[in-house]
């Protein structure tokens, strides 16, 4: 029975039976795994506060032969992100980010870059960063990491960079910007101003440590957020329940 000790983020959990919990973990070295924590609902000794949503933990995982389900015997809490729970909007965004990662990654497929992105995003949410720009950056970096980086360098139809354009459009099928000459049949709502394109291109390349310095004003946010969200969701091809919650609750929460 192999034993693993690896940093992990708790993506989701479900009650199982009288006192157990099934935990979905995004681990650094094993990727996404599902684990059972025996007695987690009752035991204050072994898992007090450690197996709650979004927590950054270091569990000790036992692998069983012929079973995809690992067993958590012990867990160290590295960062509980205690501020997320105090603000409903932060809670909604943290849940959305975790669900997106859960939907993108396959079981047991380690992805260090994605792990760092999620950890960074949860830290930013916990520290009270502006959530709408954070969400745009998260979508953009997620797409880049999983191999669907949107092309903001040249028109995806004519392959040319045309400066001095009044607007660009976004083509979901080709995953990039289209110059105004080639964008005659694209809907108006897919439009991006040159300033937004420049900002998104910069956000794609900047290191995570420096990303918080980027400033998204209202216009780039309004233009890019729906496009990136739709692009991610169309690639996923399945419903993200937290997104529905976010959209529905925005008015009440704000």
């Amino acid at each position, binding site marked *: 029975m192999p034993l693993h000790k690896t940093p992990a983020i708790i993506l*989701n959990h479900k*009650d*199982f*039976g*009288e006192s157990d919990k099934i935990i979905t973990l995004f681990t650094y070295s094993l990727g996404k795994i599902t684990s059972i924590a025996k007695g987690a609902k009752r035991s*204050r*000794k072994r898992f*007090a*506060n*450690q197996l*709650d*949503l*979004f927590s950054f933990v270091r569990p000790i995982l036992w692998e069983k032969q012929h079973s995809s389900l690992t067993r958590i015997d012990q867990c160290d*809490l590295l960062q*509980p992100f*205690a501020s*997320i*729970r*105090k*603000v*409903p909007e932060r*809670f*909604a965004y943290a*849940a*959305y980010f*975790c*669900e997106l990662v859960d939907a993108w990654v396959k079981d047991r497929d380690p992805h260090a870059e994605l792990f760092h992105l999620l950890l960074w995003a949860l830290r930013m949410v916990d520290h009270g960063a502006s959530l709408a720009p954070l969400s745009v950056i998260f979508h953009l970096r997620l797409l880049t990491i999983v191999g669907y980086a949107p092309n903001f360098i040249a028109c995806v139809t004519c392959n040319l960079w045309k400066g001095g354009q009044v607007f660009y459009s976004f083509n979901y099928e080709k995953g990039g910007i289209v110059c105004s000459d080639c964008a005659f049949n694209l809907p108006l709502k897919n439009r991006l101003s040159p300033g937004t394109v420049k900002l998104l291109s910069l956000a794609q390349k900047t290191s995570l440590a420096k990303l918080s310095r980027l400033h998204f004003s209202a216009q780039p946010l309004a233009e890019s957020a729906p496009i990136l969200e739709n692009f991610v969701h169309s690639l996923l091809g399945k419903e993200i*329940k*937290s997104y*529905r*919650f*976010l959209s*529905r*609750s925005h008015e*009440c*929460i704000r």
Partner: protein
Amino acid sequence: MSVFPPALLRLIRNLGNLPGIGEKTAARLALAILRWPEVRAKELAQSIDEVKEKIRFCSTCFSFTETDPCAICADPKRTTDAICVVEDPGDMMAIEKSSGFKGRYHVLHGVLSPMDGVGPDELKIKELLLRIKSGQVKEVILATSPTVAGEATAAYLAGLLQNEYIAVTRIACGVPMGTDLKYNDEMTLRRALEARTKA
């Protein structure tokens, strides 16, 4: 071909639908029921039937009841100016056992859970607001669990109720009775210090 007759298989399948019951446990329970005297088995069937027929939500607090309003809402000795908001009827029973609260309850039937598609509309929040608007309530005690989802739900409710002219309080979180202080985790200790009271 299955080794069990169809009627037994049906029972196993139905018991297997219960939360936390797998196929093996369902088979064990079904075989136990089969071995019971007929009277006992019929009593079980009757109690399931009765539960579905008689139990409903109390139209005031939304806990399970046979009569509407429930015994707690109909009790004239209980104060009407304090409402304790809980996640489910189980939490209400736990608080009742403590005998520490003599007001009324409101059962939300869950907590906000974006990943399960549970938003404010899926909980009994509108009904709580209506109760508060009736004007008798002076204090709302938010007694959701101190989990991430429970705390976020409490924060959401506190935000909704901030403009109402009532006191909104949250149950204290901290060191459990009878434990050694040094064995408590950092977060519990921090919350215990935040919720300290005058000795």
